[in-house]
């Protein structure tokens, strides 16, 4: 019986105390490996076409979990990140959709795009 090692307790990590912030660390990289691999494959035009035509079969080739597939289908960006997506990887899906990073950011903090743009024009969110 091999003994488990535990590399981190989230509660002990200072960056876990930063509000509203998801730091992409080893725990998330492990959980999101297949999802991020699927996302980076969208750097090829051919793959973008396949994904656009039939996202479900496309995702199946990469072994995403059920929750990850659902989050992708719903374009629930925050949920993708919670399930291990890295923001720059998840953003590849937004590019296929013709969205900008502002759309993604707005959606994650629960604003509509006009509200978010207005917030940014006014100097952004304060600390």
């Amino acid at each position, binding site marked *: 019986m091999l003994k488990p090692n535990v590399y981190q307790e989230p509660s002990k990590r200072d*960056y876990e105390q930063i509000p*509203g*912030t998801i730091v992409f660390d080893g725990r998330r990289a492990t959980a999101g490996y297949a999802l991020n691999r699927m*996302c980076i494959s969208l750097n090829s*035009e051919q793959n973008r076409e396949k994904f656009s035509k039939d996202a479900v079969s496309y995702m199946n080739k990469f072994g995403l979990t059920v929750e990850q597939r659902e989050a992708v289908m719903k374009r629930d960006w*925050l949920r993708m990140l919670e399930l291990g997506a*890295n923001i720059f990887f998840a953003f590849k899906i937004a590019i296929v959709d013709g969205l900008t*990073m502002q759309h993604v*950011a707005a959606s994650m903090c629960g604003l509509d795009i006009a509200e978010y743009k207005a917030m940014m024009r006014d100097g952004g969110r304060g600390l």
Partner: protein
Amino acid sequence: MNRIIGGIGTSHVPVLGATIDGGRTETDEWKALFDDYVPAQSWLSEVQPDVAIVIYNDHASAFSLDMLPTFAVGVAAEYKPADEGWGPRPIPTLKGDPDLSWGMVESLVESGFDITVCQQLDVDHGLTVPLSILWGQPESWPVKVIPIAVNVIQYPLPSPQRCLALGRAIRNAVSSVQGDSKILMVGTGGMSHQLQGARAGLINTPFDRMFLDKISSDPDSLAAMSVSDYIREAGSEGAELIMWLIMRGALGPNVEKVHSAYHVPASNTAAGMVVLADK
């Protein structure tokens, strides 16, 4: 002898590249920001660097999470713009400097930096947007480029201290190579921004202004902060600012601040710039 003539810190926001590529730098939305880059461009046409060593991060373009280096140095003869999802940017292929790259790698590894060496590397907006900001839309780039890619997207990131030390080692490295090139350091990324989570849209102008000030006068104080400090103050993606410390470390202790600029917002981010001449 090869010498570093100065360094530029600049944001590398994709929207700035798209604005240049689309010919919209003179619109109401963008004119003020791009006008503020003119002094940097003028300084460059005065000092005429031969090589730009660009410290940047890849954004899920050339580096998958299968194998992610802390510090990677390009040694190729040329670098193509990456397809990040929109197709490659319509810009000239970058010319590299394999001799200077390899010589630097030898010196850096000898100095105890555990470099990943890239003979093939497509470069994304992290590297190409700064080139476009500094040199516009030339038919070919007026400098050779050496890309140095830094992991700032997967924790653990290199410490700010380590970044400053790498910069200092780069200063030794370039002078160890036989040549007579004028070398420009470019540190990219930042300033404060957060693209993700409930805190998306964060801008911390006091922090950014402090950073723009200290990067010339007191980089050691910036290196004394932790990565978590950067994330807390500058946002999860504002932590890219640690790459400016590599640029700064490669300059001498005393520099002349030629220019600085600061605009909010550029898309989701505060866009900053500093131009430092080596003394």
